[in-house]
């Protein structure tokens, strides 16, 4: 297992070297309370399509220090999407959420959160490599099952094969879900001070309700410059510029 981790780490090393400088410069600027510079450095890394939970976490802190609550929440949500078990990000998100206006019950059920925290915290590639390993084990177990003449061995290898198969399917499913969780953009955060949620994608459409900065919404569908969002079973259209997709 250790070797596997080292292997994964090795794969990431190349990318890490490339982004180290901007990330480190951002950290230094943050430490010196120069949040504007920190923001521009972190944004450079984000702009290069690189991501990491720490990058988004630090970006969230920087936005918070610059009093951009909506953006800060967006960044923490991003960080937690990559690593749901990041406790500092959880804490800061909770802290910043307490400063938002809309008090919506957007929390997922306890089991879903628990699963996310415990399973999505491993990297996707970890599950990928582990599934390959399990495929090997399954292959060997199956070979034994089909070739052995000893009934005892046959029985054992059969049940072992089933167990391995179950785990293999589970890992592939998990990796799939985790990947779509990171890549799919199903949520967004309001980043303008407040936004009128309209009943259809048009400026003239009647406004149903208002959402304030920092509120997390579900994304439903989009139409030109408008996007349909859902919040607590209420839906409506907002302009794309007023939200940042997580």
């Amino acid at each position, binding site marked *: 297992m250790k070797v596997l981790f080292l292997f994964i780490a090795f794969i*990431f090393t190349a*990318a890490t070297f490339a*982004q180290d400088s901007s990330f480190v410069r951002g950290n230094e600027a943050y430490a010196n309370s120069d949040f504007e510079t920190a923001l521009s450095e972190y944004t450079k890394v984000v702009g290069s399509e690189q991501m990491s939970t720490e990058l988004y976490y630090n970006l969230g802190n920087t936005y918070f220090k610059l009093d951009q609550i909506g953006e800060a929440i967006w960044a923490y949500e991003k960080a937690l999407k990559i690593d749901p078990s990041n406790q500092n990000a959880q804490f800061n998100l909770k802290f910043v959420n307490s400063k938002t206006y809309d008090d919506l019950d957007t929390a997922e059920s306890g089991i879903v959160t628990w699963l996310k925290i415990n399973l999505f915290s491993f990297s996707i590639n970890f599950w990928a490599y582990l599934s390959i390993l399990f495929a090997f084990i399954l292959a060997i177990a199956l070979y034994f099952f089909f070739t052995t003449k000893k009934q005892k061995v046959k029985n054992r290898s059969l049940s072992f094969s089933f167990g391995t198969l179950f785990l293999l399917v589970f890992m592939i499913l998990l990796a799939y879900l985790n990947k779509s969780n990171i890549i799919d953009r199903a949520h967004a955060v309001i980043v303008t001070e407040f936004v009128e949620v309209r009943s259809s994608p048009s400026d003239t459409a009647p406004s149903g309700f208002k959402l304030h900065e920092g509120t997390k919404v579900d994304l439903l569908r989009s139409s030109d410059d408008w996007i349909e969002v859902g919040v607590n079973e209420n839906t409506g259209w907002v302009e794309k510029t007023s939200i940042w997709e997580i």
Partner: protein
Amino acid sequence: MKRIGVFILFVCCIQLGFGQKTVQSTVSSNQVAAMEVFEFQIIVNNNDCNVLQPDFGGLTVAGGPQSSQSNNISIVNGQRTQNTELIWTYQLRAKEVGSYIISGVTMDCGGETQVSEPIEITVSEEGQVSKVDQDYYMRLTTNKSSVYQGEPFTVTLKYYSKSRPDSFEALDLGDAVGIYRQDLKPDRTSFQTNMESINGVRYYTIVLREEVCFAQRSGEVKLQPYYASLLFRRDFFNQFRKETYSNTLSIDVKKIPGSSSLDFTGLVGEFSVTSEISSNHVLMGDAIDIKITIDGKGNMQDLGLIELDVPEEFDQYDPEIEDKTSVSSTGIKGKIEYNFVVIPKHYGKYTIPGYSFQYFDLKNKKMKTAQVDDFIIQVDKRESMEIDPIKTELANTDIQYIEENSSGFFEQDDFFFGTWTYYGLVSSPLLISFFFIFIRQKKENISDEELLVLQQKKAVKNAQTALKVVKANLEQGKDAEALKGLQTTLNKFFMEKFNVGLSDLSQRKIAERLTTGNVENESIEKFNKIWNAIEMGQYAPIAHENLVLTVNDTEGLLIELDKKL
């Protein structure tokens, strides 16, 4: 009723008690209309001095003087006081509009002279005199019109009336937003009536209320009009009620310089703080009494509940407060004692920071700090006592700090999962496994015919291998063994080729099978020859050269037969 121009009075009366000799001159009104008659009185509280008639300054005397005398005996705290009052009354009148001054009345008491205040009379056109009720009114006054926030000031409510009030009925305090006020004489049951001359007009005055006030915010604060209702006697049988409102009193409140300091609780005045602790060295679970005494003068009511910053290893109870203060016109004076009880729950050396507060020193107009030293308490272990775990709570005052290191950056393309390589790698072990399983299965499930074919195919190879051994034996000269080997090889070849047992193997049967197998006669003959040679060799030794020849022949025959069969 004696009419005299200049008069000297020698009236002898018994005067008991004591009283200063005073002379007063009053008018019934100092704003009159022309030709209106008003009264002028000279009031003397003794009867052994010479009083001279004043200069009326151009006013004409319409009547008087009439003299009257009143004796007033009061007993206060068992002390008897008698006052004698002599009054001379004149009726005066102004003929023209203008300002007149009645000079002060001079009283000569054997060389010691006293002069009353001169009175100014304003005479206006008839009908222009203001009809404001100047006979009954109430004034709210203060000793300081500009104070610091929290600085004490006194407010006096005084009632003025032309006639002597009979009884006091009700008092309502006006609103006082931003002011804390405290009655200076809350237990008062009776009111003292005094005489006072205002601009020469004589009034009965009563101080209805005296209070010490503290402004609680800066800016202008106001005491809204107070209301009082008093009863007066019209004649012996009839009373009448007079309801009066006072003026509004505005106080300018200055902000205390440096009042934004956190330690400043708003105390203004002079304060000191002392402390006492019952013990500095205790066992766990023993109660410690800490007494904080704040002594001073000022707005002590603002002190409120004080808090000790006790370490979390201590149980703390709300302090018992002993208030030993009293209200005076200069503020609230005295001391307040706070008795804290703390109980240590864990051993060790602890410091309870001494209590301190800032106050504004009114004398020096400076912020000062009053404080007591820290309490250092040594708590020893008590073996028999269990230690309650103390919950440590993180202060939720700021976000967590940034991460200095990143575990790794990645792009969306870095995901190994979902690539063709991944799918290939995850499925290949299974595919390989199934391939091998298939091969194995294939081998195990082979049919008899197929097995036979395989066996027949192998027969010549087996034979050739065996012949090699035979040849080796020949070379070593082991002819007998070679012959035996040759026979076995031949038998085995036909057994495999024809799939028969050793018992079914005879020269005739083999020849028959060969014939049916379309083997050329030449080969059959060759077989018979070899077979015979071997059989012969079992009984009579064959020459080495012949044996070599036979082996070679056999090899050739077997290859030929293998092709045909």
